[in-house]
């Protein structure tokens, strides 16, 4: 496990994400948040762990935790194919641009999210959007569920193998059985 940015040249400056050393910590942070949003990028169908695609782990998590999902790029179709209706779909830049806006009231119009979770975007895109939020929405808490360390998030898992990633996602999901 390493807390170096996954892409070597992506050096953080004075702020660096707190490492999530155990999946239980991620689950506790999500439980503590009152309004959480999960943003899922196009990599969700590109990673396979133990014979399952990442998107399937995320659907399990979303169903358990009831955390609403925004699908970026063409991912909405991939969710629908698997019988899951995301709360919204829009481009990664659009959702980033809404999250950074202090006046945005969320997908349901009920107010801002106090925790925004990213997973599955191309590393550099996710990194840049997290940087935008770190700088321009400094009070916004962010987390990633990737197995790649993202220094610009508030919390990030360290770099990890696919096996560890699968375990982390399963443990987080298990903490929400019965709802958030």
């Amino acid at each position, binding site marked *: 496990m390493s807390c170096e940015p*996954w*892409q*070597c*040249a992506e050096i*953080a*400056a*004075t*702020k660096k994400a707190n490492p999530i050393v155990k999946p239980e910590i991620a689950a506790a942070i999500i439980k503590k948040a009152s309004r959480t949003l999960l943003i899922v*990028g*196009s990599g969700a169908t590109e990673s396979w762990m133990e014979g399952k695609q990442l998107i399937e782990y995320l659907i399990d998590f979303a169903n358990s935790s009831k955390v609403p999902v925004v699908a*970026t*790029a*063409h991912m*909405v*179709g*991939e969710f*629908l*194919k698997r019988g899951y209706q995301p709360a919204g*779909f829009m*481009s*990664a*830049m*659009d959702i*980033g*641009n*809404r999250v*950074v806006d202090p006046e945005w009231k969320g997908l349901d119009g009920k107010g801002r999210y106090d925790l925004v979770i990213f997973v599955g*975007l*191309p*590393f*550099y*895109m996710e990194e*840049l*959007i997290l*940087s*935008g939020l*770190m*700088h*321009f929405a*400094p009070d916004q808490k962010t987390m990633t569920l990737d197995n790649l360390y993202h220094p610009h998030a508030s919390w990030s898992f360290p770099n990890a193998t696919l096996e560890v990633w699968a375990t982390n996602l399963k443990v987080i999901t298990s903490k929400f059985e019965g709802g958030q």
Partner: protein
Amino acid sequence: MTTKNVSVKIDELKTSNSLIKNLQVSIGKVVDQNYAEPMGPTPMPSLTALRDWDMKLLTKYKPFYMPDCDLCCLCTFGKCDLTSGKRGACGLDIGAQSSRIVLLACCIGAATHTAHSRHMVHHLIEKYGSRYPLDIGGLNIKVEAPITRLVTGIKPETLGDLETVLEYAEEQITQAIAVAHTGQEGNNLDFESKAFHVGMIDHLGMEVGDIAQVSTLGFPKAEPEAPLVQLGIGSVDISKPVIMCIGHNVIPSVGIIDYAKDHKVDDKIEVVGLCCTAHDITRYYNRGRIVGPISWQLRFIRAGFADVVVLDEQCVRTDAFDEARKVHAPVIAASEKNCMGFKNRTEDSADEIVFDLVSGKVPGVLILDPELVGEVAVRVAQQVAPLRKKMKNLPSLGEIKQLAKTCRQCNMCRRSCPQDLKIPQALKAAAEGDLVPLTDLYEYCVGCGRCEEVCPVKLNVHSFILKAGEKFMMEESNLCRIGRGAVQDVEIRNVGSPIVLGEIPGILAVVGCSNYPKGGKDVYDICREFASRRYIVVTSGCAAMTAGSYRNSEGKTLYEEFPGGFEAGGVLNVGSCVANSHIAGAAIKVANIFAKRNLRGNYEEIADYIYNRLGAVGLAWGAYSQKAAAIAAGFWRLGIPVLVGPHGSKYRRMLLGREDKPENWEVYDARTGNKVNVGPAPEHLFQTVETPQEAMVSIAKLCIRPNDTWKGRSIKLSHYVDLHKRYYGCMPQDLHLFVRTLADVPVTLRDEFGKILEAHDWKETVIPDPTLLPRMIRKVKD
């Protein structure tokens, strides 16, 4: 246009109380224009002349900054930490700093194109004279330089006239760079406005360059049926000496081709190009070949095809010399901007230089005389080819399998790869004798070589990928249409009405570099999808090459499958980087030729027209450069949205509209002065798309414009819905924002639209005569 330098020189003047000697006074130029069109309000605009227009756009499309660096280290007060709202020692915050970086990128891009054009104009005036007439398309083109007319108010007629245009452009770039100095501009939107300004200047610089070379060098002159040219290394006869020219400035290549022709050896050597020089070589020379886009420089040098490598300017790998030396290919640097540390041999005789290069006494030379470049390159290629015998710098397949066993699986190659390619896994397989995973990387590798730089056991990973994919490389033989140059006036007349009314659903410009996220096939697929839907598809630069690099089920390339005219379903390659100006030029000409709007110094009105009426979108799927940033900025100021592929997010700033904020989408109805909500049309001005599927849906949506007739809107919505259903698996949820009257709804989709309109409590609105400019409102009838 005629210009006069007015200068007074007095050698000696005695007056009652003074003696003046050697006095020289120059008062610049007196412009004598025979150009009947009335001058608009902003000829040769200064940095702030179009600021109000920029702010109108920037209010709708607010910057979304994503800093790539938390610090500023541009002055000695720094480094300054700008995180979380902190200001630096100069008082600048991260928003302004981010926009300052955007401005600097655009300045670099604009300076690069303009300096390129300046070099060509200098050279061509020296060769052909300043009175040499400009001819862009004979009788087919009356509006020869739409950007120049629009921005400067000048109607250039001769090569010499272009110098006045360049002087203006150079001044503006200097002013804009000055803005980026510490302690100058402090507001992010003002930085953005200046980036727009420099983008406009960039288009001007590009136009000057391309019309100069089209007029003098015998390039195709706005020819829809410009010939097809061989594309790919598989099309090169490598049994002959090969001269490979890399870069963007064709002048040294012209020297090579002319020498070869004059000495009747043009059939005995191959002159091939890589990157935009390739386009311009083929526009000049029917034996020229395009070997590929910018990112393949290492590929072609290491594969040993080139007997001489000629480097001109822009996008040249700075280690090209080191790479060429490894395959014993002499290098000729031919640009003042790119001397590569070589000794300047411009004043030496060709015999001496040829001897030194062939004997290996020196591995490379700097030659700043294109004719001398020509002679040296041809003679050296002929003499070196039999000696080096296409020496490669690639390992054998057996060596790869052995060397791969030394891989430590440290993952550094993958973590340095911009594509996150699974190199460690491929090396593991190679070590076990299976080269297929390594071969599979060939298509997706952008050729940066960073994997080799970080490898702790010094494996030449990129060479492994090239060798594994060598069979594909050798078979790459496709077709590209030679860059045609400008769009004819008659073509504009033919399509002006259906474009503006929306019946041709849009113009898609697929441009830019080759930093593709997953190979080039996406470019081909996107072009083909929209050409099949009868959009007008325009290509340029590396994207134009990539578009021609794949074939359909009948074995036809895109340029064989679709016509080359500016027409519904046409796929036209305008040419090299500087030919991008013809894409902006075509948009401007629609406003001028079809809509009869005055061009001369009338930027704001024309941009307002284009923004509200012309369903045009740029897609730079693999944009990487500062030039691409400047080109995009020029389109933003014209009100034309630009999409970039995922790597384009690294431009660090998007210009995004907010579909959910109806107050952003009001325009004036020029007929009444009333404000009308026209919906998010277009939704964004600069946007990163993550996948090709998202690109296709976004392109269709971004072609929607307030001025669409109900018929045009219906056609555009049909494409948007169809692509959305295909790639997103569902109906779009924002259709109520684009339906103004029920006539806008495609007939076959009435039921599906009906549900969405009902769910959103949709109400009918009017189709306005849209404008963002209050001065365009006609007098309201009492």
